[in-house]
């Protein structure tokens, strides 16, 4: 490069950086939030509520503070969370969806958020109601937020009711029952069209690469007595896939696949299309969360409003052939609500914020964020909430603000866990029965739930090598079920998992679990 060119460049650079610097000096000093306003960041599923809308006004009246809420579309919530963490303009209160994710954990451990492990006892509504969920929501023995409750047990089997009745079959109680139903659904022409064009169970594609994914496969593993993700055997921590019970479960699942009792595209079916074969009348069994039955009711209703209530039946977890029952639980929460230290600096300020959250988690608060304003957009009948004038534009706005936005601030109530709020009324008797049955099954199966002891612990090796390690066993299982791997080859893959870092993960987890449990 010639000297002339270099000088030219230098000149240009000076000019532009000067402009840049002078343009930069304007920003920077964020206005300090005064104590009458609380700033929040919350995920959003629809259109953002108007800050002067009825719901926000009612919430502000209840908590006695102004709210400054940044609503972030759910799909990009984690991206925005990371940018927000990097920009040192944290809101006072943040919904954290992935409270085990590295960027949150590292931020929390670096002191960005309050450790609430011993601080909630004096707030009646924030005090954890479920010890199990409280443990599940821990991050390395610490709670950096208040968990947003979900049912602790949501696994269930949804079955085509009309098919069962046509073939004169009973609801399943054991894994063998389920196999017989699937077999009959495949071979005995349950839709009566004279063609063998149905299959028993609908299995979707494996979501992502993690082995423990609350998939139907995991549920069936647990039914046969395998650990939920990890479990203690003779004082040693073992993974779900390295116990004899796991192999029993594999043989069971493989029988379904080999005999054509599942959808032919079981390895690739998009989870978003899981309901379709059920509604199309191609398959008759789905193992998933119990609320899927509600979705299926709605789907059938649009096809035929007369008969929709005759098509969906639900069963709980099944016992294995020897009669022993193990049920598959969920974590019991969906993300946490954390308090950042940036503006909430002293214990007194924290107390003020927690008092606000306590009001939000109270009965009045729960009703407000999960149902709306009683007498305005809903009324209560037989303990259920019923919408009033839901075609009225103003009511639509209120309902949108509640269902797509403010419900995300619910800490003590959710669908299936009414807490202080109300469950929505379902029109048909079949659906009412289903709601009742759902609650009964949840309570019944919870007694045999097999919890995942590794939830509160984070293994550093799993963090660093997860991308390589996770797919090893996950893919091997699917390939084994598809007949592409023999049992020996599958076992060799499991050994590869141990050798590439699995052993170390187990050691780290076991160490962490003993600390949490101790």
């Amino acid at each position, binding site marked *: 490069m010639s000297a002339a060119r270099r000088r030219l460049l230098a000149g240009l650079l000076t000019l*532009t950086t000067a402009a840049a610097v002078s343009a930069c000096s304007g920003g920077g000093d964020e206005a300090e939030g005064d104590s009458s306003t609380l700033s929040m960041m919350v995920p959003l599923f629809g259109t953002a509520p108007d800050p002067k809308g009825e719901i926000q006004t009612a919430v502000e009246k209840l908590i006695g503070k102004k709210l400054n809420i940044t609503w972030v579309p759910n799909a990009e919530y984690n991206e925005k969370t990371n940018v927000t963490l990097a920009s040192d303009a944290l809101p006072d209160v943040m919904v954290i969806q992935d409270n085990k994710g590295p960027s949150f954990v590292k931020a929390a451990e670096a002191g960005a958020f309050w450790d609430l492990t011993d601080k909630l006892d004096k707030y009646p509504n924030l005090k954890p109601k479920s010890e199990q969920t409280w443990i599940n929501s821990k991050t390395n023995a610490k709670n950096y937020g208040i968990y947003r409750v979900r049912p602790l047990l949501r696994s269930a089997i949804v079955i085509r009711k009309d098919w069962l009745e046509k073939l004169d079959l009973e609801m399943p109680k054991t894994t063998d029952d389920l196999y017989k139903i699937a077999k009959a659904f495949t071979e005995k022409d349950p839709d009566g069209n004279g063609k063998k064009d149905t299959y028993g169970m609908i299995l979707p*594609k494996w979501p992502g690469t993690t082995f423990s994914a609350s998939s139907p496969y995991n549920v069936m593993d647990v039914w046969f007595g395998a650990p939920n993700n990890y479990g203690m055997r003779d004082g040693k921590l073992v993974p779900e896939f390295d116990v004899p019970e796991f192999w029993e479960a594999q043989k069971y699942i493989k029988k379904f696949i080999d005999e054509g009792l599942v959808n032919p595209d079981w*390895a*690739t079916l998009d989870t978003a299309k899981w309901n379709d074969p059920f509604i199309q009348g191609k398959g008759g069994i789905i193992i998933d969360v119990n609320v899927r039955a509600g979705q299926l009711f709605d789907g059938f209703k649009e096809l035929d409003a007369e008969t929709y209530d005759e098509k969906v039946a639900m069963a709980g977890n099944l016992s294995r052939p020897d009669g022993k029952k193990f049920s598959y639980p969920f974590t019991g929460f969906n993300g946490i609500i954390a308090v950042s230290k940036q503006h909430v600096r002293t214990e007194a300020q924290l107390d003020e914020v927690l008092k606000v959250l306590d009001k939000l988690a109270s009965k009045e608060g729960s009703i407000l964020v999960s149902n709306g304003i009683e007498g305005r957009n809903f009324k209560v009948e037989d303990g259920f909430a019923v919408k009033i004038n839901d075609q009225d534009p103003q009511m639509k706005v209120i309902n949108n603000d509640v269902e797509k936005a403010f419900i995300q601030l619910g800490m003590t109530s959710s669908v299936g866990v009414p807490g202080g709020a109300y469950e929505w009324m379902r029109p048909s008797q079949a659906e009412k029965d289903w709601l009742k049955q759902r609650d009964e099954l949840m309570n019944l199966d919870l007694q045999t739930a097999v919890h995942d002891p590794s939830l509160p612990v984070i293994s550093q090796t799993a*963090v660093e090598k997860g991308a390589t390690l996770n797919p090893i066993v996950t893919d091997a299982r699917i390939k084994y079920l598809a007949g592409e791997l023999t049992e020996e080859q599958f076992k060799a893959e499991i050994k590869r998992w141990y050798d590439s870092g699995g052993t170390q993960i187990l050691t780290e987890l076991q160490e962490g679990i003993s600390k949490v449990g101790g």
Partner: protein
Amino acid sequence: MATDLAPPATKAARKAEKGRRPGRVPVRTALLRYRWLYLMLIPGLLYFVLFKYLPMYGLSIAFQDFVPFLGYSDSPWVGLKHFENLFTGPDFGRLLFNTLFLALLTALFVFPAPIIVALLLNELRVSVFKRYVQSLIYIPHFLSWTIVFSLTYLLFSVDFGVVASWIHSLSGGGPKVDYMAQPEWFRPLVILQLLWKTSGWGTIIYLAALAGVDPNLYEAARMDGAGRWRQFWHVTLPAIRPTIVVMAILTSGNLLDQSFEQIWLLTNSLNRSVADVFDTFVYYVGVTQGGYSYATAVGLFKGVAGVVLIFGSNWLAKRLGQRGLF
């Protein structure tokens, strides 16, 4: 004189530039003489400095364990750790192979597609039909990969795929092929999706280039007795050759970038061995690890490869007598 049918515009431009190209001039003279040109350059330069070069310090996190909350100054430095993980990791060979293979297929099939379509469109003589085709084929550009994937599934699913069952009945029964699951069908599906989504949109730039051809050239060629083929060969093709060359050089720089969403949606446990590419692996690392630093390290690696490819293909283009990028 068929060989001498290059657009006069180009020749004139070359001549003009050759004539004005000065020797070395003192900076002050240059600044003064070309002050208007430099003035026009300033807003653009300002943009590049502010929004492209100022944030470049972000690349430093490839050598850190970046934690968003700690920021650039306080995140721990880890040297070449992420590069070591990348190059010595058990997945590197497979990722590199899959990425390169897809890049090669893209260069071979996806890059020429819009050129061919644009040339065919250019030969259409029914202009109403031409307009309709033109407006229809670029619509897929506006659909997200999610929608493209749903459509693909609709067509190729082993259970209800329209195309899949069509092929099945045409080929006379036998066991059904699961196009979505079998590794050997993964790459063809990716290429098909790319062709469908991008070919129409890609024609726009070539059509713009073709629109710039002087009709007098065709007239002159016809007077010289050139038939349709020779007009195409000696007028149409030379007219868009510079555009093709520039597009080829520029796209070579991003050849190693695959559309993450497209690949990710098509991946499943049965085809992962051929489906994993750098862009999807970075995503998996991100899920477990946060992965900003690793992603940046991979980005740097791909960037270096991209620079080599751009300058390499530029050099090649010049060797082949084309103008190149500069």
